[in-house]
């Protein structure tokens, strides 16, 4: 009994309602931002909780779903998500880690964001690590220094001063050893701490370009340049300046002798300092890994943590908003304050902390930075090489065999 005019009205109303539904649905859909993160340690967890709350306040139409995972499993599952149904933002790392996914088209190009926010200026030192083929593939938010933590009280006891050169380091290690103190503590059970030593000695002996080239499989492990690194390292290893039985200990277990005074130095990243008690802070200081070759500039390991948008993400619009939010100096300050690390945005504030203060100086004056061994090279190469490094530290006489083995592996891995 409905007239044609009325039925048209009804149809129009339905159409309008339908459009409205779609719009609401679409915006409700657009309004959810899914973030997967492995920043599961207590300090970053709290910091990001704050950031997300502030982001949601600044963007009331966006609701954030923040999923936390532990580090190890995250490394495996991210590979699954990226090819199936990824979140809108993933936490990840720069260097080869990022390259693996960029090469397969799994990360979104965000160069437009970099240009928009003029990040080339504020993120000058971090930009190279985020750039492949002239485009940027993610946004960094923190990095941290590596270097030598040392027991100032023990140094004072034996009248030792901060070494500026490797020879000086060797000399003071000898003094320590003669007095019954293990010069360097280290725990190589999980391998990567040995890689830290290789990184620094290679950076100091051969420079960043060669090091990255080696990481990319473009240099031979049996080359004379690499052998020179081991020659330098050998002076420490063969003199027994490292903790005994270090293959039994993880890096955390290796802390014990350092805290108890049985060992005097530890080459490690700044995450170490987060553990210190007040009393320990007063006894522990930090110095830059000394120069080995006066002709080689001082490069540093400065692993960077980053955020990316997966190519198959559903909500790229809001994801970009979040990345933009993270690049604001005050937000980087907030996060790095909690993490006790260094913001990648040069306009952000660094917390006034005795270790960070030295770290910032070192990184600002560094001629260049690397991401750390197992982030700079292919994962399989990293594992194989790190096992070789660990073996070298216990059996330096096997160097030849080890290097040949690494060459064979690199040949196979990088020729693909």
């Amino acid at each position, binding site marked *: 009994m409905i007239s044609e005019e009325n039925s048209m009205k009804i149809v129009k109303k339905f159409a309008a309602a339908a459009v409205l539904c779609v719009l609401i649905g679409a915006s409700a859909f657009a309004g959810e931002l899914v973030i997967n993160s492995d920043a599961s340690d207590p300090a970053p967890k709290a910091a990001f909780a704050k950031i997300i709350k502030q982001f949601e306040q600044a963007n009331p139409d966006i609701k954030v779903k923040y999923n936390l995972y532990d580090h190890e499993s995250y490394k*495996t599952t991210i*590979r699954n998500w990226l090819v199936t149904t990824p979140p809108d933002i993933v936490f990840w790392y720069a260097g080869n880690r990022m390259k693996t996914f960029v090469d397969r088209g799994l990360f979104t190009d965000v160069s437009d964001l970099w240009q928009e926010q003029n990040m080339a200026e504020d993120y000058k030192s971090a930009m190279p690590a985020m750039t492949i083929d002239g485009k940027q593939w993610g946004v960094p938010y923190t990095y941290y220094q590596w270097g030598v933590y040392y027991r100032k009280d023990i140094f004072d006891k034996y009248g030792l001063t901060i070494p500026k050169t490797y020879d000086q380091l060797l000399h003071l290690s000898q003094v320590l050893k003669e007095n019954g103190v293990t010069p360097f503590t280290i725990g190589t059970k999980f391998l990567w701490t040995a890689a830290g030593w290789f990184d620094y000695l290679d950076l100091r002996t051969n420079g960043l370009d060669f090091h990255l080239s080696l990481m990319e499989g473009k240099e031979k492990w049996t080359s004379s340049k690499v052998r020179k690194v081991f020659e330098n390292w050998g002076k420490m290893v063969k003199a027994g300046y490292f903790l005994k*039985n270090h*293959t*039994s200990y993880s890096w955390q277990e290796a802390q014990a002798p350092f805290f108890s005074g049985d060992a005097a130095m530890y080459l490690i990243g700044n995450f170490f300092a987060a553990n210190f008690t007040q009393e320990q802070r007063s006894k522990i200081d930090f110095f830059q890994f000394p120069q080995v070759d006066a002709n080689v500039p001082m490069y540093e390991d400065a692993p960077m943590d980053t955020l990316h948008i997966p190519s198959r993400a559903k909500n790229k619009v809001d994801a970009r908003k979040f990345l933009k939010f993270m690049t604001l100096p005050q937000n980087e300050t907030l996060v790095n304050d909690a993490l006790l690390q260094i913001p990648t945005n040069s306009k952000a504030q660094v917390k006034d902390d005795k270790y960070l203060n030295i770290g910032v100086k070192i990184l600002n004056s560094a001629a260049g930075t690397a991401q750390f061994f197992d982030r700079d090279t292919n994962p*399989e190469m990293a594992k194989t090489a790190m096992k070789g490094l*660990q*073996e070298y530290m*216990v059996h330096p006489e096997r160097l030849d065999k080890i290097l040949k*083995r690494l060459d064979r592996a690199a040949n196979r891995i990088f020729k693909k």
Partner: protein
Amino acid sequence: MASLTNEKGFPFKVDTVMEKNSNLTSHNKPKRRRVSTKVAPWIFLAPGIAIFALYVIYPIISSVALSFYEWDGLGEKVWVGLGNYIELFESDVFWTALKNNALWLLLFMLAPPIGLAIALFLNQQIRGMRFVKSLFFFPFVISQVVVGLVFAWFYDPTFGLLNQFLGVFGLGPIAVLSDENWVTFGLIAAGLWPQVAYCMILYLTGLNNLDPEQIEAARLDGAKGLRMLWYIILPQLKPATFIAIVVTVIGALRSFDMVSVMTSGGPWNSSTVLAYMMYEESIFNYRMGYGAAVAVVLFLIMDLYIFYFLRNMLKGEK
């Protein structure tokens, strides 16, 4: 464990069941079309076979196929034919793993005799013996992860019990898990603990079911001690020994948990076994095809024992 049994060893009363049967059809229902006895077994088997085929048979075939490709789990699968196998046979890690698997096999063979020894030791009827036997069986019941953690700690060079013990005798600390010469032995010792417990229980059960007449007869003949053991007891324990050996072999070849929890195959691969190597290549090195090849090799080795077990078991049936 024995109770009222019929000639097939089945513990129940036949009459009550026959009664039940007639009760089931006491309504005199008209004969409906019933599922024939030819079809019925397949219906019963269907769900089991279906899920088994999906999760066991298909994956085996799939893994074998995958072993002929190079695949990192992300990109394309690349055909390499026998490339993975050739690489395997040329790799140091593979031979170390194989050597370690052989060591595991060899030393695990200690489990049945030690298990037998403990079973003989415990085979007395004193009060509370049931409880003691259960306590001895304990290690088998707890997870291998727990066993691994406990032993890792036991071997700790600074604080572990082993080195404290050696210290009492003035022997230097041995960092078992970080010494490439000792590490596999340390792992095997940890693995033996639950394995011996299992063999022990097998033998205890076997000893419970010895033929008392044979023993009495032998005693009257003056047999005792080791002679009794060798000529009278052991032959009667053959079924238990058979199972003990098979399960021990399977356990030795499967030894993933200990390696993973205690050393991750280290130091520098010296304690790796095929089971762990496969896992590492697939999960950490992202080389699915290569990992599959390792798995296939392990599978082929296991097949020898599966075949041996099946042949013996089915022979016994006939």
